[in-house]
């Protein structure tokens, strides 16, 4: 447990990808089975203990600590596992006892519910502070050490002198603690492999959501992907119950649409069930729904039709792999497996619906506003919004609450003038990365909002240079930047909506503003006016009222 705890601790503070890889590779090399396999499972979200959840930790904290002091401490620290690990009244002289990660994982899996609190408390007594933190993190499941399954697999590839894609191929064929996988990586056994089965799974559906409702959620707990304007399908292929090779295309209601898409089904070269969107691609671009409609309207699939409307499936979920039903896994874990799957099947008529990279809802709003720049590229026209999915969501039939959301909305944009810039925090702390911008109200600029993302790292460096070279005044971490009619910087600002606000000088507040473009070309005098915003606001009020 000490070694695992030390690994987590170092990973948590190591910002460099190569540094993380080196730590992981060393750990996998120096740690025996099955500990390293359990560690791998823990870091990739593949462990889930039915009886050991956050509630158990609260129970223990209540038994061993003063409730007032616990509440004050938790409020200060903000993380349950960390609070308890720091204040657990343990005898440090007895710490560092020989408790292996396997003991802990197997104990968490097999101990009857009633005995678990006593068991965990006994472990906590035997561990030092770091060990306690690792144990409690294992139970809460949110390690937050910046290790993706992909990163873990890259480390495995380095361990075995293989390519990361080779790991993707075999990853799903073994289960924690991955004895076969490690044996293969160390040249002591064959590559893991598994059988498959074929069926339709009732699909999981989403709820519509408004941007303001997102603010209640922690973005780190969600993934996002494009909402494609096609039809929902399931692609299922493999060996059926009679030992025969089978392949089907199911609609979202479970009807077999295989006959209408022989071009697709005939090319299913996998043993899996995939969830995705059926789309038409021409000249390297995904077409809009109107084009797809033209193929759907024909009853029989002629060679001419198939050539004219070439179909494929953009996949976003993996429901079964081989004989294994994956639906109970968290979305993030299924997603990782889907990515492996897609990489391993380059010739299947599928491609992977990409995740949208974002750290904040603001960043997602920016991608939503400009899918072409947000990762959708030339396919942007087939995007009708974004899907937001909880990382820990199992795949549940129907429309369960609180897991999947669809966010369809059109953003607005204006040209504004940069007025003030403030130093950022964290990685950006040496850059001026938070920008206050204004629009014209007569001859004066009125600040209307603040944005701190939407630009690339290179653009940030340019903006930072601009700020430093055009500073008028300094107020602590804030710099006032030149902003006359002739001289200054125009920023195109996109946002999701406008509200009236008494707290703002302009009387307006923007929702999710972000820099969508830097208008180096545009003189400040050509930026928008407060009247423009007022009109947008009135339009919005009419529309929503």
């Amino acid at each position, binding site marked *: 447990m000490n070694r695992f705890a030390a690994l987590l601790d170092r990973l948590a503070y*190591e910002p460099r990808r190569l540094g993380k890889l080196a730590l992981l590779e060393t750990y996998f090399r120096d740690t025996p089975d099955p500990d390293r396999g359990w560690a791998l499972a823990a870091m990739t979200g593949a462990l889930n203990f039915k009886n050991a959840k956050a509630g158990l930790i609260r129970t223990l904290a209540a038994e061993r600590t003063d409730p*007032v*002091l616990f509440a*004050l*401490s938790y409020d200060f*620290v903000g993380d349950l596992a*960390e609070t308890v690990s*720091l*204040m657990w009244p343990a005898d440090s002289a007895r710490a560092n006892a020989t408790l292996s990660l396997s003991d802990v994982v197997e104990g968490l899996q097999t101990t009857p519910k009633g005995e678990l609190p006593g068991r965990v408390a006994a472990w906590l007594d035997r561990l030092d502070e770091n060990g306690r933190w690792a144990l409690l993190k294992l139970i809460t499941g949110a390690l937050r050490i910046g290790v993706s399954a992909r990163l873990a697999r890259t480390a495995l590839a380095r361990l075995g002198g293989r390519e990361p894609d080779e790991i993707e191929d075999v990853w799903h064929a073994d289960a924690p603690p991955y004895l076969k996988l490690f044996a293969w990586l160390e040249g002591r056994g064959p590559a893991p492999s598994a059988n498959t089965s074929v069926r339709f799974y009732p699909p999981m559906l989403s709820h519509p959501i408004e941007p303001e409702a997102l603010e209640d959620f922690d973005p780190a707990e969600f993934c996002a992907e494009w909402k494609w304007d096609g039809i929902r399908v399931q692609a299922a292929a493999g060996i059926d119950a009679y030992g025969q090779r089978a392949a089907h295309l199911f609609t979202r209601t479970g009807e077999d649409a295989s006959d209408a898409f022989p071009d697709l089904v005939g090319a299913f070269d996998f043993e899996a069930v995939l969830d995705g969107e059926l789309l038409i691609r021409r000249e390297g671009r995904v077409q809009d729904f109107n084009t797809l409609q033209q193929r759907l309207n024909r009853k029989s699939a002629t060679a001419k039709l198939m050539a004219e409307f070439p179909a494929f499936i953009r996949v976003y979920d993996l429901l079964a792999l081989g004989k294994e039903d994956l639906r109970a896994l968290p979305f993030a874990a299924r997603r990782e497996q889907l990515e492996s799957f897609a990489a391993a099947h380059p010739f299947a008529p599928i491609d992977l619906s990409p995740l949208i990279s974002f750290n904040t809802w603001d960043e997602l709003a920016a991608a939503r506003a400009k899918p072409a720049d947000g990762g959708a590229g030339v396919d942007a026209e087939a995007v009708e919004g974004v899907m937001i999915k909880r990382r820990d969501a199992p795949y549940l039939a129907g429309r369960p609450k609180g897991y999947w959301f669809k966010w369809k909305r059109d953003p607005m944009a204006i040209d504004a003038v940069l007025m003030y810039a403030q130093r950022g925090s964290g990685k950006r702390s*040496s850059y001026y990365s938070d920008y206050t911008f204004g629009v014209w109200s007569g001859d004066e600029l009125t600040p209307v909002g603040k944005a701190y993302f939407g630009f690339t790292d290179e653009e940030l460096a340019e903006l930072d240079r601009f700020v430093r070279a055009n500073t008028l005044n300094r107020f602590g971490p804030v710099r006032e930047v030149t902003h006359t009619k002739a001289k200054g910087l125009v920023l195109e600002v996109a946002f999701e909506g406008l509200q009236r606000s008494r707290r703002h000088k302009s009387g307006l507040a923007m929702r999710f503003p972000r820099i969508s473009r830097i208008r180096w070309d545009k003189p400040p005098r050509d930026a928008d006016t407060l009247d423009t915003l007022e009109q947008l606001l009135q339009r919005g009020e009419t529309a929503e009222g």
Partner: protein
Amino acid sequence: MQPAQILHPRPEGLYAPAADLYIDPTRPVARALITHGHSDHARAGHGAVLATKETLAIMGARCGPGFAGSTQALAYGEEITIGGVRFSLRPAGHVLGSAQALAECGGTRVAASGDYKRHPDPTCPPFEIMPCDVFITEATFALPVFTHPSADHEVMKLLDSVALFPERAHIVGAYALGKAQRVMATLRACGWDKPIYAHGALLAVTELYREFGVDLGDVRPVQDAPKSFYAGAIVLAPPSALQTPWVRRFPDPATCFASGWMRIRARARQRGVELPLVISDHADWPDLQRTILETGAGEIWITHGEADALAHWCAQQGLNAKALHLVGYGDEEAEGAAA
């Protein structure tokens, strides 16, 4: 005599009416007793200032020679009677020159400890217990999650990292007065005999420590040099400098931060710290408890920090505790934190 007649809180700070004297006043007053040189305790502009000679020297170095109308040095253990109240100072173990102030009158003893710690610090004399009726304590780290490891242990972590990444420069954020010199002295005690590089903002106080006989070895200012010059170097800087382009001059800088707050992961990560060093000049939770019990005081006044938790604990011990909620006292260990 009632303790509150000897000393009680006012907006300006703790006030001794019989002596017309304030302890660590946050606004200019006629007569002040200053416990130590941190800027939230030692402000310029008072009429007469009473403090240890080290604290007076630190104030002079930080605020300029005219920081007070007049000054009087009081050595640890020496007594002075003002308006019938007998004042004396004892080491607080916080930084060089730091003192607790004892005010006695009519057999009642009130001890104002200023900021203090119990962990060993090679740069200042250790905290001394003063038996008293009322103990006035800070509560910066008064939560059970705060148990500071030994500074040696933390500095060894730094040295391990330097050995592991000989091509990188390790930049250690440390408050300019006290923390920086304690880290330097601890580095020496742990066997680091190469030069220690210091940001310009640390030099004056470091020089003062040296004048008072604290040996810190070869400390050099950071100078313009090719990046490779600082490979494997340990550089100390005020925490605020960690977030400026200043650090870009060093090869692949590894950001370290010496503060009691580094015990909380989120705080370390929020500041982009790669190597958190839990080194604090304030008493941790067990030491706050131990100190309160050792003074024998029946009444505990809490000046600033996590007063609720400490007051709760005191009540459980049957001690009379009250939070004074003194404003104006910050916490130098959080200096430079992002707003």
